[in-house]
């Protein structure tokens, strides 16, 4: 179910402002790739271009190519809605739908698209997704309760369950733990480790320890100054980035000399 | 639960008549209370009928009659000769119409002064008060007509109607007729001057007078009870308002010249009011066609007019609206006019 992503010379603009410039990167299937870098360097911006979520922001647009298993997401006639079913996303703050129960939240991606599904198939999918998100045991007795009643970490796992319920091939995560306490963070990190068996995972994180704990490959982004575009500085195996990076800025950043 | 049909209201329903149908009427707001009484009694007597009278005002009423939107109307004046000549009444077969004065109501002049229940005033003085020429209650012009009344040193505030009103037209007609020197304005349904207090509706005038010490105003007599009343000088004596005195005024007035026999437009001249009559009276008419395009409507209107003009109808209205029932003499003329109407 997992796919590779190839990005060629991508520029991202907000209106006239060039936020990210000239990124080319190859993301391998069944790996966890971490994006690190100081605040404002365009990690989130770039991440969103991988499933065309940037288009939700008025004025945001890209130049360049993103190939998922060789198919360009930005080719004419590609439906962004379908792209997003293929490339799922989890956000910084857990955002379960407040009007829906836990179960409905998991099924949201299926149901909102008006897909008919038998009751038992539904139950099946709910159990599978929640188990996949390491949440099944905690919520199996209250599937009909609102999702907003869960703790932050549980909500975030619910969002992950919701994302995997539509069986995507890639899962993007934008600082999925930054709003969570250490114990919840730990649970999510565990989960990420399991997810990579089935999916290609890309995660943005502010926390270098987290990057080194969960990722196989790490991309370091940086920015020359306010108003300048963010760029991809270095992309390598996580171990290499954190021990013997080839660029000085990377070394400075991972050793805590700035940012 | 008096809906939908009157038949289910209390049992003493009189024998059903053959009459059925709905007639639409608009016009004078002065007749509002009387019409409510007439309509109620008529509908109860003729359970298959509905009469919708909406007080839109006389002017719109007369327009509605011309346009044919109203089957009959109430109006504070008859159509003028010019209007009759122009004709074109929408619901009628011809320009031959019936105009009958069936609502006569004295207009009281009322005031609010502590401890004084009535005053005598002549037309000249009233005109000067409302024109703003006499501004204090202890003015010699007032005192000279009221020996023995201790008039206070109190500013006079005259109250008039804020909107267009038949009562107001009657009152200004009176002032203009009896005191043309003191009251130089033409008769008008809107107040021509920019002084005094304005109040909306008869009720507004009455409320203003009862609240404001030193206030004086004119209002349909039925609503003016409990206020200080002005007796008005006619000839040599001062006449308080009364239903009889008011209908005496109308009875003594000549009919306007050059109209058909069933067009009873009175040329009321307050200046020529006979002794003992009350000179300020609103005369309001019912106006209908002699022959209707729709004969069924014609029958209904005729029946309604007959009831209104009847002694019973006049008493019903007097009880509900406090107006002056028309005299026997006048009823004879009115009935004669109604007889000209064509029924099925």
């Amino acid at each position, binding site marked *: 179910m997992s796919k590779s992503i190839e990005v060629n010379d991508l520029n991202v603009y907000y209106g006239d402002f060039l936020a990210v410039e000239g990124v080319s990167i190859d993301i391998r299937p069944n790996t966890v790739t971490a994006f690190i870098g100081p605040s404002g360097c365009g990690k989130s911006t770039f991440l969103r271009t991988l499933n065309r979520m940037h288009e939700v922001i008025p004025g945001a647009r890209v130049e360049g190519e993103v190939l998922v298993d060789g198919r360009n997401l930005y080719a004419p006639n590609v439906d962004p809605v379908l792209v997003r079913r293929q490339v799922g996303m989890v*956000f910084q703050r857990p955002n*379960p739908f407040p009007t829906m129960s836990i179960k409905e939240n998991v099924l949201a991606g299926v149901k909102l698209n008006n897909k008919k599904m038998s009751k038992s198939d539904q139950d099946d999918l709910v159990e599978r997704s929640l188990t996949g998100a390491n949440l099944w045991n905690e919520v199996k007795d209250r599937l009909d309760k609102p999702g907003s009643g869960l703790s932050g970490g549980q909500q975030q796992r619910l969002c992950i369950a919701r994302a995997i319920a539509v069986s995507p091939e890639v899962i993007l995560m934008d600082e999925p733990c930054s709003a969570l306490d250490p114990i919840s963070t730990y649970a999510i990190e565990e989960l990420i480790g399991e997810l990579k068996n089935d999916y290609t995972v890309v995660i943005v994180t502010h926390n270098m320890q987290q990057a080194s704990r969960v990722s196989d490959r790490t991309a370091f982004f940086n920015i020359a100054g306010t108003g300048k575009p963010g760029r991809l500085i270095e992309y390598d195996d996580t171990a290499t980035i954190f021990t013997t990076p080839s660029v000085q800025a990377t070394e400075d950043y991972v050793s805590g000399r700035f940012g | 639960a008096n809906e939908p049909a009157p038949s289910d209201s209390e049992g003493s329903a009189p024998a059903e008549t053959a009459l059925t149908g709905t007639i639409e009427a608009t016009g004078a707001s002065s007749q509002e209370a009387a019409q409510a009484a007439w309509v109620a009694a008529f509908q109860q007597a003729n359970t298959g009928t509905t009469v919708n009278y*909406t007080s839109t005002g006389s002017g719109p009423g007369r327009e509605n009659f011309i346009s044919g939107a109203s089957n009959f109307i109430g109006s504070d004046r008859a159509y003028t000769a010019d209007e009759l000549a122009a004709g074109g009444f929408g619901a009628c077969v011809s320009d031959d119409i019936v105009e009958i004065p069936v609502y006569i109501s004295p207009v009281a002049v009322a005031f609010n002064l502590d401890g004084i229940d009535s005053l005598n005033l002549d037309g000249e003085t009233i005109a000067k008060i409302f024109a703003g020429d006499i501004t204090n209650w202890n003015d010699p012009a007032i005192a000279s007509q009221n020996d023995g009344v201790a008039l206070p040193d109190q500013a006079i505030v005259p109250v008039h109607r804020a909107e267009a009103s038949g009562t107001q037209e009657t009152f200004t007609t009176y002032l203009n007729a009896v005191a043309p020197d003191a009251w130089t304005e033409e008769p008008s349904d809107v107040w021509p001057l920019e002084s005094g207090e304005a109040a909306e509706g008869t009720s507004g005038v009455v409320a203003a007078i009862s609240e404001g010490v030193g206030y004086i105003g004119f209002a349909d007599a039925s609503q003016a009870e409990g206020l200080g009343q002005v007796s008005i000088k006619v000839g040599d004596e001062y006449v308080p308002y009364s239903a009889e005195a008011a209908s005496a005024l109308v009875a003594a007035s000549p009919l306007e010249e050059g109209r058909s026999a069933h067009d009873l437009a009175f040329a009321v001249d307050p200046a020529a009011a006979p002794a003992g009559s009350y000179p300020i009276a609103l005369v309001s008419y019912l106006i209908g066609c002699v022959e209707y395009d729709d004969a069924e409507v014609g029958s209904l209107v005729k029946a309604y007019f007959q009831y209104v003009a009847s002694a019973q109808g006049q008493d019903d209205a007097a009880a509900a609206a406090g107006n002056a029932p028309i005299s026997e003499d006048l009823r004879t003329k009115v009935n004669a006019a109604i007889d000209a109407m064509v029924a099925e």
Partner: protein
Amino acid sequence: MTAIAAPSASATTGSGRLPRRMPWMLLIASFAISAVVFAVANLGADPADFNIALAVVVGMLIYMVLIFAISSIAESRRRAVDRLMTALVSAAFVLALLPLISLLYTVVINGLARFDTEFFTFSMRNIVGAGGGAIHALWGTVLITLGATVISVPIGLMTSIYLVEYGQGRKLARGITFLVDVMTGIPSIVAGLFIYSVFALLVAPGTRIGVMGSLSLSVLMIPVVVRGSEELLRIVPNELREAAYALGVPKWLTILRVVLPTSIAGITTSVMLAVARVIGETAPLLLTVGMVQGMNLNMFSGQMATLPVFSYMQSKYPGVPPDAYLDRAWAAALALILIVMVLNLIARWVAKVFAPKTAGR
């Protein structure tokens, strides 16, 4: 910096603070003084409500003077100003309560005389003088307001969806926003005149039917609905929209299945408040639907009675005895107020009970 006099040693305590309970005691004392003064000055005269109100106002003034003076001395000038403003701001609130209390008192006292079953079961058909009721007006009000709601809500809601979800930053959206503001300012009587003119031109002069009332109320209601629901759609967190988009849900389904359900409680509330706002309109209904004595449930033919117009006409054209008419007018006013209040209460209840607990705080 040199000029900052506050010597650091005593800075934290400054010149001390008034004990917590002191201001309250002062307030009570001030009201007591004022009450005594008014009681003495008013000996013999009957205690009109005017004096009660005035006593309250004077009491507050005394309090303000006292607290300002005492605080200036015992604390600091800045504290004194702060306390004075606290008093002023609270006084503003109390001041606004006085007319409300007086109004409710007036309406209830006058309205209760005829607030009986007959009032809610009888129309004015065949009623002369006392008795009768306003069932026909009640139905008219219900029907006409319902009509206005049916017209306004779809238009208003869809417009706000356009403004929030589709129009962002577009000239047209800005134009609509501006004109909605302008429309909010349309005087109700002008709305009545507008509908009156349209029907005068299209049908016949002097046409008065129920839908005209609904239409003129819609002119007043639409902008309120747009404003209200726009606000509520905007506060639906973008995160929820993004969550749906990221699941591959098309935009229109996102709006329909995520955004609207999330805000529906609030929107219901704002619609009810909009209804409450127009249900008491008199002037446009006077112009467009007029008045009748009996029940007319046909929105497309004939004049209709409505509660506000009923109340107005009963008080304007009293027959004999006038009190019967005035009592009906007040009873109608009381009924109207109660309807509006109940609508308001339900609206708030809906907002509270059905509002989804959005994620996060």
